[in-house]
């Protein structure tokens, strides 16, 4: 299938002389699935969109207890990966891909995280030299949905987000299932499967207010210096996004067969640094996110399960996960830190919950997960030492048939930016290289490409 065709089927839509026009198209190969045997699964007549998302957990893992020994399909599941057994067929595990510090120091939790997401390590968030890859992908594919991207953090803190346009522009997160429900399915939501559709007159007024100042905006820009222009550009970008949202609200959304408006989620009370409560909040948010995607509210998301330098804790304990990575002695009889092992394993249970929530939604001939690509990673590799060599990475989904799933791929110490390049290419971006300095690469991870 090709992009650019309307979601309403074999029509091109445009504007001529101020009026909307449509042009019928003949049957094209692009309308068929990869086998050419049947019409691809559809959203209101067009091909189902391929969505992209990231899933983040803090403090990495214990290599001997997380990394599979066998490569390729049917990889083994060491103890910390055992929780993904039920969703293993959807998940590829990528090990041995390194952050190349190229002479820079390793600032724990930051160097690795920024390198994975931006293609260059930094020791200061303000020093980020490139947008995080979710932002690049959202710029390319996020325009046709109500939210360009959705940032979610299960820790209850709106500031927990690793999605940045630059060091000064963080995309803040929605921190609870209740708030998320109201954001997605609140009063601005247009049910795509509702038979009748009437544009909300309030929206029409709001839209005309924004449109009404176009000339004034242009006049103002002519009078400004470079820095004010840049500031105003950033502001108008958000205004344009708002205009886009309003325009979408004035159209009947295309039907989405998998969209079922969920019940409002219950509030998760108490301290959600407690790992069990966190998992509960995260699961509720994951289920809500699955419906937000199925209802075409966004095509890009970032979900944070636990912060970099993980904030998780066990009920009744004052020492959290991160503190344990530094202070807990290795039990030499078993060869690892047992509390750290506990939290790393709980994190993988949460990842399995997340994948399950996406795979549970039927869409077209498969599932929602089949039409998306989720990139899961941590900020460090070995929790105890906060290394950045071999930061754990997993992928879930088939990106609409563009990638294979259920593989273990060993990176052999090559740069982890190969993964970021691959993700962008799979999502249809015309990039042939990605990453800065020693992390620049032109080699995608071809083993996962279908």
């Amino acid at each position, binding site marked *: 299938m090709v992009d650019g065709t309307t979601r309403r089927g074999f029509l091109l839509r445009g504007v001529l002389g101020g009026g909307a026009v449509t042009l019928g198209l003949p049957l094209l190969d692009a309308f068929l699935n990869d086998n050419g045997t049947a019409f691809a699964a559809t959203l209101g007549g067009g091909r189902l969109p391929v969505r992209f998302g990231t899933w983040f957990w803090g403090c990495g893992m*214990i*290599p*001997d207890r997380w990394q599979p020994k066998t490569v390729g399909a049917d990889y083994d599941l060491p103890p910390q990966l055992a929780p993904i057994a039920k969703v293993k067929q959807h998940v590829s595990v990528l090990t041995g891909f390194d952050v*190349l*510090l*190229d*002479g*820079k*120091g*390793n600032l724990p939790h930051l160097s690795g995280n920024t390198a994975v997401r931006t293609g260059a390590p930094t020791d200061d968030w303000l020093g980020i030299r490139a947008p995080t890859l979710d932002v690049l992908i959202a710029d390319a594919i996020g325009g046709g949905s109500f939210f360009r991207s959705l940032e979610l953090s299960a820790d209850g803190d709106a500031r927990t987000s690793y999605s940045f346009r630059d060091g000064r522009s963080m995309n803040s997160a929605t921190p609870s299932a209740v708030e998320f429900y109201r954001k997605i399915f609140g009063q601005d939501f247009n049910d795509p499967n509702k038979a009748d559709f009437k544009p909300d007159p309030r929206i029409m007024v709001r839209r005309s207010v924004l449109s009404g100042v176009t000339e004034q905006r242009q006049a103002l820009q002519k009078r400004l210096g470079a820095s004010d222009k840049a500031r105003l550009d950033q502001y108008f970008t958000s205004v344009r996004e708002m205009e886009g949202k309003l325009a979408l609200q004035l159209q009947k959304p295309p039907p989405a067969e998998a969209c079922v408006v969920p019940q409002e989620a219950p509030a998760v009370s108490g301290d959600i640094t407690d790992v069990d409560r966190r998992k509960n909040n995260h699961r509720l948010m994951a289920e809500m996110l699955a419906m937000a995607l199925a209802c075409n509210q966004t095509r890009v998301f970032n979900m944070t399960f636990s912060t970099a330098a993980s904030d998780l804790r066990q009920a009744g304990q004052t020492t959290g996960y991160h503190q344990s990575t530094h202070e807990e002695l*290795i039990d*030499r009889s078993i*060869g*690892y830190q047992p509390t750290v092992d506990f939290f790393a394993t709980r994190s993988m249970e949460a990842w399995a919950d997340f994948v399950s929530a996406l795979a549970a939604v039927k869409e077209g001939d498969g599932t929602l997960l089949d039409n998306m690509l989720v990139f899961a990673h941590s900020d460090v*590799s*070995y929790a*105890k*030492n906060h*290394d950045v*060599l*071999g930061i754990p990475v997993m992928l879930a989904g088939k990106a609409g048939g563009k990638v294979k799933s259920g593989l273990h791929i060993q990176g052999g*110490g090559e740069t982890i930016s190969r993964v970021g390049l691959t993700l962008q290419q799979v999502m249809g971006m015309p990039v042939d290289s990605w990453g800065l300095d020693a992390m620049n690469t032109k080699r995608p991870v071809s083993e996962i490409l279908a």
Partner: protein
Amino acid sequence: MKRSYSAAFLAFSMLASYAAYAAAPAITNAIKARQASYKEIGGAFKSINDELKSGAPDMNSVKPLARDIAARAALLPKYFPKGSGPEAGLKTRAKPEIWKDNAAFVKLQGDMITAARALDAAAASGNAAGLSAARNTLGGTCKSCHDRFRAEL
């Protein structure tokens, strides 16, 4: 008299500041990179030592640390360009002898790179005795170089 000392000190400070300010970015970057690398190498080496002292080294710790040491060691030669000694005006323990007797310095750097690779290989094999021997060899190359080419604090 006291005043003239103060004036001289002030002038010296300004000159030193200017030298630091005036150091070419490439020189500044090289000094920063080697200092960051030595700090990481020192930390990693200490951690490996601690693991060996435990009697049952945690290879999850040792393997990436040894790999990091080897990777950083291989990059070190490019972080000693001419002009990056004390004359750069930046805080550095690199002695002028590094460039006066450069062949000896380069030889010791090569020894360190070889020893770091051997440490990495020993860690990858998981053999504690081999790791201990490789640690000793690498420690020896560090000391040889520090004795000749690193200024005391």
